[in-house]
């Protein structure tokens, strides 16, 4: 038996209101993902390519060093992600904490979050939806550094003409997600 009971510690910390950032890992079809939430909502998702230590340090610096591994606090979003990856869910109902985004980046990501499942937009269209039609490059940047990929569906934003553009999880992953949503994937 492991003498260290993290579940109990996380439960008491949350009860006392001192669990500022809870995180857990999720098995995605293309590798492991890290998910992190504050009491306000989902604040960060990260692909395997980002080192866990780096992501946790970033959360510690930018939000609070009270960071604990606490899967139970993320049950809702973990279940929704599982369903999404199995093709059984087309939108997420988990609340989002937007605190890692501000200014135009925030507006672009909020606009991205309204793109429906199975549809795509261009960076140009996204910039327009975010209120700055000229800011195409900035819109691309907002997607490239999206702190909540999958749930804020930056994979649904493509170059004009249909080229994939970039993706933090890798282009393979972006293609997989678009295939999933277009129903071309045999699950």
């Amino acid at each position, binding site marked *: *038996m*492991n003498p260290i009971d993290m579940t109990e*510690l996380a439960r008491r910390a949350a009860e*006392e209101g001192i669990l500022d950032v809870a995180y857990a890992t999720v098995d995605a079809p293309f590798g492991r993902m890290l998910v992190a939430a504050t009491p306000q909502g989902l604040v960060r998702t990260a692909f395997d390519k980002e080192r866990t230590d780096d992501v946790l340090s970033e959360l510690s610096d930018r939000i609070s060093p009270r960071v604990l591994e606490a899967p139970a606090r993320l049950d809702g979003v973990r279940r929704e992600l599982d369903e999404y990856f199995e093709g059984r869910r087309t939108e997420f109902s988990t609340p989002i904490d937007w605190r890692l985004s501000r200014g135009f980046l925030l507006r672009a990501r909020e606009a991205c979050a309204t793109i429906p499942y199975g549809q795509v937009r261009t960076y140009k269209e996204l910039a327009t939806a975010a209120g700055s039609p000229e800011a195409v490059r900035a819109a691309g940047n907002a997607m490239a550094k999206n702190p909540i990929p999958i749930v804020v569906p930056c994979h649904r934003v493509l170059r004009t003409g249909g080229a994939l553009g970039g993706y933090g999880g890798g282009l393979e992953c972006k293609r997989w997600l678009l295939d999933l949503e277009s129903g071309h994937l045999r699950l």
Partner: protein
Amino acid sequence: MRLPPFQTLIDRHGREVHRYLAACVGPIDADDCWQDTMLAALRAYPGLRDDRNLRGWLLRIAARKVLDSHRATRRRPVPVADVPERGADSPPPPDPALWRAVRRLPEKQRAAVTLRFAADLDYAAIGDVIDCSEAAARQNVRAGLAGVRREWVR
């Protein structure tokens, strides 16, 4: 100042703190003491101004919880039941009877001996935890060992 995520402290020092607590309060109370220690640490963590010795900081909080635990159990008879079965992750102190003798030492000596032999701290770090000089920490360990030896030969 950039503090590491609290989970990192638990991953790095959690077991060591538990070992120290098991030596101080016995394996049965150690789990509760560990929870209280980590919760107190988490509460205070964002206000911490010095990140040079996080291990010592955790052990100092643990030492305070040991004091609390001893105060709470002072009027209770010392439990002498068998040590419960434990996994390989946190071996109990090698000789329970010996550690019971340690637990009967005066507070500072007990803390010093356990920190030296259960948490493997050097004398400067022990002084840091129990709030005395390096020389006084060494003296407390020496006096504690003498006390245990006296009890042990009886």
